[in-house]
């Protein structure tokens, strides 16, 4: 291309691969289809069917499950007539009691605060987008959601629970509680929510609403 063409390029007519910067012609992607970069193979667009409805439903499910997952015991250990229960918050407190303040804060963030914030942000976003309702801070909410995404670590916490159960198996009797079942549901809702989320559609909608 010559320099003249360069200045006349309309940015909105193209896709740019965020991973390798390849310039691609924009085309329509039907629902349930994906577009991959022809050079580096990264997923450019992954268009989901009813993305907004799904993320709203999953955010509601997540919010409902969040409370039993945090309030009821996840595991109960019984041995010689003694018993001890564990919730996510009590594991944070155990680190605090071991004088590991930074690690306690980290677990508090990764296993309680960030998963809750992700659910609330998604609830707010998908409700406003579904109702086509211009609302304050939509772009902020989406940006924060994307920034927090990889710092919520409930599924890793779950693997930690499994490792702990196996470690204790010949020492004591460990029984799962209501918290564990709720936590499993919460993790499934969170994981499904991130696979059903179509960021391009969300950003386009946010842009339309903010222009009004």
């Amino acid at each position: 291309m010559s320099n003249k063409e360069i200045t006349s390029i309309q940015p909105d007519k193209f896709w740019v691969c965020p991973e390798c910067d390849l310039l691609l012609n924009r085309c329509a992607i039907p629902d349930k289809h994906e577009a991959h970069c022809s050079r580096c193979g990264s997923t450019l667009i992954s268009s989901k069917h009813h993305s907004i409805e799904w993320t709203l439903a999953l955010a509601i499910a997540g919010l409902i499950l969040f409370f039993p997952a945090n309030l009821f015991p996840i595991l109960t250990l019984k041995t010689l007539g003694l018993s001890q229960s564990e919730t996510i918050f009590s594991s944070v407190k155990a680190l605090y009691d071991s004088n590991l303040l930074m690690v306690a804060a980290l677990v508090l963030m990764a296993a309680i605060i960030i998963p809750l914030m992700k659910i609330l942000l998604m609830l707010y976003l998908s409700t406003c987008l579904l109702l086509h309702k211009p609302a304050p801070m939509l772009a902020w909410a989406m940006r924060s959601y994307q920034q927090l995404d990889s710092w919520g670590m409930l599924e890793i916490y779950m693997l930690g629970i499994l490792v702990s159960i196996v470690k204790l198996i010949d020492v004591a009797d460990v029984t799962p509680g209501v918290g564990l079942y709720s936590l499993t549901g919460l993790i499934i809702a969170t994981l499904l929510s991130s696979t059903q989320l179509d960021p391009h559609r969300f950003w386009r909608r946010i842009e339309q609403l903010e222009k009004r």
Partner: protein
Amino acid sequence: MQHSALTQGIIICHRCAKTAGIQQDGETCPRCGTRLHRRKLHSVAYTWALLLASMIMLIPANILPIMTFKALGKGDPATIMQGVLQLVDHGLLGIALVVLTASIIIPLLKIIGLIILLLTVQLGWTTNMRQKMLMYHFVEWIGRWSMLDIFVVAILGAIVQLGSLASVTGNTGATAFAVSVILTMLAANCFDTRLIWDKHLEKIGYADHVGR
């Protein structure tokens, strides 16, 4: 011919993927408010700095004990590796392998992977580009799973609280390990994969107008 968007005067928001003209470099994205840059700022230097810091933290993380398991008043603080060996002694090979992978093998693979990617940019190794992208995505995805051992310490610390009968406390090695994991996650976030493709284009003679 493969055009890099930047050589055509187009830049992309790294948060919401909106395209913009090069004249908007340094301004905020009109859609999400993130500051636009041609490439992530000081990507190579920041990635090296965070990576080196995490490598340094990995030394105390492996030398210092991360957890003390006391039964009937007996039990010494154990390092990550001693914890794995204890599991092997108890015949729990599967779980020993899971902990070994998450706590020792993954951190090493992440460091090696990021070093290869950084050297790719700095020394212009432009072979196996797609494999390098896969490697980056692997490093980015796998990083958080190293938090497993931290969660295990937290969960055991909360549930094994039976006074003088049995107790688990966390030790300072856990802080060093958690910091090291966070630093490698940040290092992976700072790395800009487009730089390896810029090098690739430079090698095959296209990127004459890629400005820094």
